[in-house]
């Protein structure tokens, strides 16, 4: 009787071992499946993010909020006075612009004929060189970002002059 009982227990152990091994194999399978899947989702996310960054950068230079217009005709430049006023409007209507820009910041830096690190606003203009347009920094991601930039023509309407600037789009991870 004792021998039969032992044999039964061994049988039970065997069965449990088989179940555990099957469980481990399934777990490993799921782990690799998810690794692969998450990897592919990350890749898609990065591709979409890069695509979006490039599209946004191209688009930002042409939105009515900042683009030069002379007699209802758009010109291929950014209006310095419009950028200063757009900053305030965007800040007041942040919910609207978050849909478009998300966790990013957008600014224009004056690079030619002179650089100037002073931030532009209604009081410092035109003796300034950093035009901040939008800022929505993700908490904890201040140092985790990717930048994209293009050169733009910056128009000072009261002087009738064009200067060279750099439109910088910073995306927070």
């Amino acid at each position: 009787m004792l021998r039969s009982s032992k044999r039964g227990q061994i049988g039970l152990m065997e069965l449990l071992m088989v179940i555990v091994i099957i469980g481990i194999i399934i777990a490993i399978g799921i782990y690799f499946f998810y690794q692969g899947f998450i990897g592919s989702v990350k890749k898609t996310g990065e591709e979409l993010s890069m695509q979006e960054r490039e599209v946004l950068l191209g688009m930002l230079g042409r939105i009515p909020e900042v683009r030069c217009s002379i007699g209802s005709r758009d010109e291929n430049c950014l209006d310095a006075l419009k950028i200063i006023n757009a900053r305030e409007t965007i800040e007041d209507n942040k919910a609207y612009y978050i849909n478009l820009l998300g966790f990013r910041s957008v600014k224009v830096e004056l690079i030619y004929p002179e650089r100037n690190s002073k931030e532009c606003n209604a009081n410092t203009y035109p003796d300034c060189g950093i035009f901040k347009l939008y800022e929505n920094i993700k908490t904890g991601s201040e140092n985790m970002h990717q930048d994209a930039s293009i050169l733009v023509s910056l128009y000072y309407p009261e002087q009738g002059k064009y200067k060279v600037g750099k439109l910088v789009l910073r995306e927070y991870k």
Partner: protein
Amino acid sequence: MFSHYTISIDIVSKVYIIYQYNDDVMIKKKGTSEAFKYLLVLFAGITILIFFIRFAWQASGLIRDVKAVDIRETLNDYFNALSSAEDLVTTANINSRVYVNQPDCGKISIGIRRTISNAAEYSHIIFSPAILNERMFVWTKEWNYPFRVGNFFYLISPDTKIFLVGNSKLIDELTGIRKANGACCENSNYIDPRFKVEKKYSVDANFIRDKAKEYNKVIFIFFGEQATTVTGIENARLRSINAIDCEDEKDEEECRGTISFGNNKQSFFAGRPMLYAAIFSEDYQNYECGFGMAKKRLKLVSDIYNGKKMMLERLMPSCSKYGFSIEANYNSLESMYGNMKSLRQSNYDIGGVECAKVF
């Protein structure tokens, strides 16, 4: 052989089978009986099966969600990229269903198989049917009032037909009617042929019923006349438009008028791009949603120009032409149109070396 037997199962799952041979009772205790093994295997099998079904279900849901986000973001990028175009028609293959303004105005959802993804907010001004399937035509056109405010997007399914009912120069221009010499639509802002817009002098209820059977969706726009009353046709949309100064020789901003969607639902349009919006909208709700977003953008851009005007006033004190105010006024067609005209004139009047134009 067996007179009788009993099986007892205790709570720790040990099974004892007691065989009774005539007078002899033999108790054969199997440490773990075959029956228990079967039960255990059955239980484990069912558990694993349930796990796999659940896993497959969740994985399929996750893949679907990722695909929906992918489509939605690509569509958003697509609109962003097109939003800087002045006037452009293109075709978009979306390989899924797009629900515009569902569940609320300003939201887009993607339908894959039988499920609809979580809606995402968008800020583009879209006039379209409520549901677009697989493929759509996209037309984007900028709206100036009097300065550039933003782009309108008109989306339409290839299986939609539009009839412009009436006989006017405007309808000829919109549909691109050929002249007797064969030349088509010289200097005319006619609607792209892909949008299947056709002119009809008049239509009756039978014609509407016939066309409703022929096309998946059919829109009848009655120009300058009351829309024919036809009930019980689900896929036909009827509305009437009264347009003023919309012909090609006039400025686009001059074009204005009223739209009646039936059931006492009326609205107005300001600018030629908004006339197109009245034509391509699915219904009153879709039109009002797009119109509301257009007004919002008009307000934002007006605020920026007003700020710019005030700064110019300060930076150029010798110029005395900045005494006007730039405010978005869109309570009625008259106030919106009047405001636009006065702004345009005020800006036009700014001149000379001591002044810079606001827009």
